[in-house]
């Protein structure tokens, strides 16, 4: 039985969120707000712009789940998966651990983050995602 969550964060971004920005502005933003590892993950994705949006969406969701984490940009995330579907974690704020999951749905990226003490965040996130899927399956 995982421990109780201490926070939940949701972020939804339109895929064209940064479409008004030029390449240099996006590169500057990535250099300022993403860690080296996060930038490397972005570089491996088919669409670099979309990957940048995913990382920032994860940071935003993580910050909403655990607002005492300084600023949204301060979370250093370990990214797994693709820009379309994946998971991110950080233990930077131990003993609170944060897990985030994202999925591209239509023109949006939907990200859900959960903060929990110990190692329970990942399991809680799975439970929450399952609950959301079940609820969606029963929509009229």
């Amino acid at each position: 039985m995982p421990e109780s969550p201490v926070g939940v964060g949701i972020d939804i971004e339109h895929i064209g969120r940064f479409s008004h920005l030029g390449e240099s502005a996006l590169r500057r933003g990535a250099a300022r707000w993403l860690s080296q590892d996060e930038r490397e993950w972005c570089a491996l994705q088919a669409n670099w712009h979309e990957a940048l949006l995913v990382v920032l969406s994860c940071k935003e969701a993580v910050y909403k789940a655990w607002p005492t984490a300084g600023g949204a940009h301060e979370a250093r995330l370990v990214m797994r998966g693709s820009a379309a579907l994946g998971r991110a974690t950080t233990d930077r704020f131990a003993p609170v651990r944060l897990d985030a999951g994202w999925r591209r749905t239509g023109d949006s990226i939907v990200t859900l983050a959960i903060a929990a003490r110990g190692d329970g965040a990942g399991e809680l996130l799975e439970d929450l995602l399952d609950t959301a899927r079940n609820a969606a399956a029963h929509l009229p």
Partner: protein
Amino acid sequence: MDRAQIEPRVRELLVQALGVPSTSIDPDFSASSTPAWTSLNHLMLISQVEGEFGVFFSNQQIRDLTSFKGIVEAVATHLHGSA
């Protein structure tokens, strides 16, 4: 560089980072009255301002810089060491 020189450059950065028309940026332009001033666009705006003026804002400043006036003041303070 004085405020009269800083203001038009900040205005242009707001236009670029938020994707809003320059005519919408009056002296009271702020995040609270601008739907396009989202949290992610805010990050992009801050990094653009820092790069444009060669300044670096603290976490507290990043949270507080939510108005046209505030950004101009903060840049002027960084460049001149006083408000």
